């Protein structure tokens, strides 16, 4: 799989995970690691980029004992982008399944 494609898929996964619940960077990294065999190093730069593109807003949660955590929440702009991305992903998967399953018109 090409790096660009993989990057796009990871981006979509990060958006989806945060759309379910606001999470800190460490939690996003760990959740991604649990479900997908990704290089953890790549997750934070994606969070930064998507925040800069206004798909996430952040707030800092201070804790009595531990380090303050930056928590990421999906914005409305992010929700629209995720919805569009999911639609494109479904169409893409449908086409890929058609080709790989051999269910296409062989002229």
């Amino acid at each position, binding site marked *: 799989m090409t790096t660009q494609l993989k990057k796009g898929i990871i981006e979509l996964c990060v958006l989806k995970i945060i759309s379910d619940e606001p999470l800190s960077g460490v939690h996003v990294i760990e959740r991604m690691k649990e479900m997908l065999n990704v290089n*953890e190093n790549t997750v*934070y730069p994606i969070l930064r980029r998507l925040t800069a593109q206004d798909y996430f807003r952040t707030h800092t949660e201070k804790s009595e004992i531990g380090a303050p955590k930056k928590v990421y929440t999906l914005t409305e702009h992010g929700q629209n982008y995720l919805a569009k991305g999911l639609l494109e992903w479904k169409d893409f998967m449908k086409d890929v399944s058609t080709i790989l399953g051999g269910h296409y018109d062989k002229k």
Partner: protein
Amino acid sequence: MTKNNYLTFLQTLLDEYVMDNQIKEDIIKDYDSLWLQYEELGMDPQSIISKLGQPKDIIGELTEGYIKKETKLYYKKKSFNNKLIALTPFIALVLFFLIGFLVPNGFIYAWQTFLLIPMSAIILEGPKKNLEKLTALSPFIALIIFFSILGFGFNLWHPGWMIFLIIPIIGGLNHPSILKRVLISGGLFVTAILYLMIDQLSSFGVIQINSNVSLPYSLFVFIPVLIVILYEWLKNILKNGWMYLILLVISTALYFYISIEFNLWVISWLVFFSIPIYAIMKQAPKKDKIIALMPFISTSLFMILGYFFNVWAFAWLVFLLIPVVAIIQGK
């Protein structure tokens, strides 16, 4: 690596990019927080680094869309240099007319202002090493000194032509072997001095050499050094193909035949251009061939027009073909 070392290294790498300080601070603060959170989970520095990534591995992702400071400076400088090079033909033209009209007999010298065009390109965008730059500039420096100072200035056409020896002398200094540098550049320099001494002593009558043959005879002092240069050259020739050797033999035979039979010593040396012309035809990329050939074509035309039609005063115009052809070819 401790957290502080990690963050300092990351900061150093971020500082290499043209990026808002606020963004850099934010990134460092985030990594600081991520480190602390992993630490709270009981991880050691090594494991934390494997989670966050080595600074040199993540810097590319973090700085996506930003350019390096040195890259920005490089393009800024390059853009300025290119503008300056593009302006040089106009500067040369203005200087040409100023010198031509304001200086007595100015048009005799004025054509040399056009040498500013290739010279500016060599100075601003030419080789990076100073010696290589000087080598590339040496033909132009020699030409200006020969015509403006020694020739027209002091009427020292002979032995003023010897200034052209600075081209192989400086060129020889670029040889990777110190011994060859001494043999070529040192040898040529010492020989030139020796030749000059013999020539001057004979012209003042200190030593007696038949005046008709003194020049050719005294040129024989160049033979040892020419052998060294020829040996070096032949070594390359044998490596790169016999065609060069055949051309050398034919050119030399033709040179002596034309010179002696028709007394055309002034222009017969042009036959030696066949060697670089062959090299260009064989090795240069197709679209660059004509550009590379133009200096040889221009020089040949210059000599032929000057010698056979006696139009030296205008013949230099053919040298303008060099930049014109390069511009047309889109260089």
